[in-house]
């Protein structure tokens, strides 16, 4: 195995294990804490895909902001009551069926992926010579102008949604 493969194997195993830890913890706060380590590992994976801007964003937005949001949501819930109740284990057969269904959907797609695809318009060399953030900026604000502006609308909806949902309790 080459060095990148060793790192990829580590990240793949760690991500699978950490996601299992997140969903199986009895204490939701512990689950969220494992998720923090999970997000940092995802950032590591991005780093090895030559996406260091994405890795930084993963740390700033996911590990920094979204995780805090998750923590507050967990704290909004009545934890004592939740811990006493059994989790969703009594419907594990449904979960199994859904996962198997998704797996069978994914299997035909496996052949379509290539581990070393030919480099497209933006090869590693070109991105590195031009600068990562420069490349992102030039493409995002010209070619993907409409999705970018739609993103602002989605963010607006989330602000309004959060305010509307909690307004009743504020007054």
């Amino acid at each position, binding site marked *: 195995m*080459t*060095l*990148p493969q060793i*790192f990829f194997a580590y990240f793949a195993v760690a991500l699978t294990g950490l996601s299992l830890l997140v969903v199986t913890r009895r204490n939701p706060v512990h689950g969220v804490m494992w998720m923090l380590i999970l997000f940092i590992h995802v950032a590591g994976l991005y*780093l*090895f*895909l*030559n996406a*260091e*801007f994405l890795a930084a*964003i993963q740390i*700033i*937005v996911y590990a*920094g*902001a*979204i995780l*805090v*949001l998750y*923590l*507050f*949501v967990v*704290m*909004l*819930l*009545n*934890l*004592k009551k939740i811990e006493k109740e059994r989790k969703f284990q009594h419907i594990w057969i449904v979960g199994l069926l859904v996962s198997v269904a998704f797996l069978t959907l994914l299997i035909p797609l496996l052949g379509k992926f290539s*581990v*070393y*695809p030919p*480099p497209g318009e933006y*090869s*590693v*060399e070109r991105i590195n010579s031009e*600068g990562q*953030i*420069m490349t*992102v*900026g*030039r493409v*995002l*604000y*010209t070619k993907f*102008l409409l999705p*970018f*502006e739609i*993103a*602002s609308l989605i*963010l*607006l909806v*989330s*602000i*309004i949604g*959060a*305010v509307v949902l*909690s*307004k009743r*309790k*504020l*007054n």
Partner: protein
Amino acid sequence: MSGNYIPSHYLPVISILAFSVLVGLGALIAGLLVRPRRPYEQKLAPYESGNLPVGEPRYRFSVKFYIVAMLFVVFDVEAVFLYPWAVAYDRLGLFGFVEMMIFIVILLVGYVYAWKKGALTWE
């Protein structure tokens, strides 16, 4: 080349992460091996500045925390969009300036809405 990329300039970051994990775990394991274990009730009680702990440690937090966290996420994402825009600003010119202003104004609507609804005041 995409499969063989090594971010070698991140070696210091990975080293310091590994070192800090090692220090943290090492201190815990060393303490576990060295310290005597003689627990009794007072020793196991949570420390609250010398007072006896009163009430449950877990209660439902105010929904105000949720709004603050949500607004933080939204404006954090806005700041993230500003990074590549600022770096590529010279190439984008007036066009880029106008589209970013549209983006900011749309989010400003949400900000003003949250402000007027009193989501930013704490009491």
